[in-house]
């Protein structure tokens, strides 16, 4: 991932927890695929499994690789299935004014970029999308700039340098850790709780 230009999918609600992103009853799979089908299941479908008309994912108007959501996105359960569901559905970026810690780390481990903007910027963005549902936004990971080209607006976003490199090059934490095998073994020799 480096540059993304896309229309957005807005969900202007705060505290969207991972139980909403993917309800527990869909966590029975033993692989990582197919969770997108049940993304936001109980907001997206009614009791008879019919699409809920006014939910944003059921609007053909709102499409794109960028999800825009209210503050404290991804709170609650640590289920990585939430990140898998978002990725499987096709989201590459989530914009919010605040992310829950575990979700943020799960997102990054699945090459979804969580972009934290100010409350003000977020509320402006929601308004702009409301005005123009086909509004395009652009993300440049290298320069760490999120912008709305048509409105001439942009903001910097933070990402730590290690994770940035992982995202840009498709690296995984596990490769990094496996390469430290010797250091871990040495550490274990004198550590109280190592077996």
């Amino acid at each position, binding site marked *: 991932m480096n540059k993304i230009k896309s229309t957005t999918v807005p969900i202007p609600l705060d505290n969207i*927890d991972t139980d909403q992103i993917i309800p527990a009853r869909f966590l029975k799979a033993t692989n990582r695929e197919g969770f997108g089908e049940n993304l936001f299941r109980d907001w997206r479908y009614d009791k008879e499994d019919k699409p809920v008309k006014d939910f944003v994912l059921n609007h053909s108007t709102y499409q794109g690789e960028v999800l825009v959501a209210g503050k404290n996105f991804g709170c609650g359960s640590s289920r990585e299935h939430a990140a898998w569901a978002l990725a499987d559905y096709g989201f590459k970026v989530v914009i919010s004014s605040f992310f829950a810690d575990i979700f943020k780390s799960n997102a990054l481990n699945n090459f979804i970029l969580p972009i934290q903007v100010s409350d003000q910027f977020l509320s402006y963005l929601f308004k702009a999308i409301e005005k123009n549902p086909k509004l395009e936004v652009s993300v440049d990971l290298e320069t760490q700039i999120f912008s709305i080209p048509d409105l001439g607006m942009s903001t910097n976003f933070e990402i730590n340098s290690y994770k940035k490199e992982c995202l840009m090059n498709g690296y995984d934490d596990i490769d990094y*850790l496996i390469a430290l095998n010797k250091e871990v073994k040495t550490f274990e020799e004198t550590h*109280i709780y190592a077996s």
Partner: protein
Amino acid sequence: MGIAAPKTLFEKIWQKHVVQAKEGFPDVLYIDRHFIHEVTSPQAFSGLHKRGIPVAKPKQTIATADHNIPTKDQHLPIKELLSKKQVDTLIKNCNDFDVELYGIGHEKQGIVHVIGPELGITLPGMTIVCGDSHTSTHGAFGSIAFGIGTSQVEQVLATQSLLQYRAKTMKIEINGTLEKGVVSKDIILFIISKISASGGTGYFVEYCGTAIESLSMEARMTICNMSIEMGARGGMIAPDQTTFDYIKGREFAPKGEAWEEAMAYWKTLKTDEGATYDKVISFDAAEIEPWITYGTNPGMGIGISQNIPDVAVNSTAKDMEKSLGYMGLSKNQALRGKKIDYVFIGSCTNSRIEDLRMVADFVKGKKKANDVNVWIVPGSKKVEAQAIAEGLDQVFKNAGFDLRQPGCSACLAMNEDKVPAGKYCVSTSNRNFEGRQGPGSRTFLVSPLMAAAAAVTGEITDVRKLM
């Protein structure tokens, strides 16, 4: 070298576990104990299979089945095919990778955050992780314990280490004495409603003060358990004599010389005089009454004598409207006297023997209200056995409670234990999210005492009035 700077408990344990600290990179943290369960581990094991690598430290890895298992007829094969496949996958993975599994029917089986402490696996000064956000429970022993995602479960299985940024530190101090009828669950529900469901994000919390020190280990676990519900990475309480007494003699606790060595380490586990936290908050225990949530996140809570506010801390009018609409409630409404349909007593928050005793003491000689279903689900086989040995099962039976078998049950409703749509459930669990206890279910989070009171009256009741 000068005199070492004073450190917080969190900093001490963190530093003891750093394998590598490198500028521009997260720390490489050594993990002492790794708990795994059927729901968040299969994809991690698949990763090991694909790479053809073993579990680095099988002896530091402990598995159980809890999230997705029935709480009735556990001696029979699991009926739900996907659930059965998930549990069977755990059995196979534990066999393939030589990991000890306390599976269904095993005398040590139970909710992962109940069995760790009760078996003496969880010890002070450890780093503990699990693919479950309520891993913060183990912080009650003065350990750094936190929930991780499945990619990280794979990392820990493969390397016994994790890449982690150090969290900021927050001290939450509660001094004073709790009123009768007010218990540790009320303390944590109170705190979360004061600082909101996101007020702890980015922090590791240390709870202290006389009100915390006076609590039993099980009561402390309830508090640390819900640290995640304010967004904190974890919560911890410095170990003291209460902690050491609880651990001593437990199956996997250190014994003999090892005990003495461990004690020498454990006694260093407290925040130094003069150490600073990034944030400090204090409350007076006298402010706390039996607490209850009214909304759809754990930050939306009030004291039982209060009415629903216009807006919860750190919330918006729009969020309140959505939450109250879902709950079928309105602003300024009192919850006292509200008719309820279900009571759930269980979960990693409140399913330990003290919780069951507290409920049994209260309901002894009473009966549940006619139109209420009451489920009581022990946290482990050991808790279940202890409850039976003490005759609590008879108390529950006489009260009309349905005592089920150990598991996570209706806390997250992955199994058959679901609250039907639109129904109200008074619950001792940890989350009141939309649909958490079943699609369309409506949850009020409370203490075991408040749950017992609601079970008996069939409505939301101030338990103090019945004591």
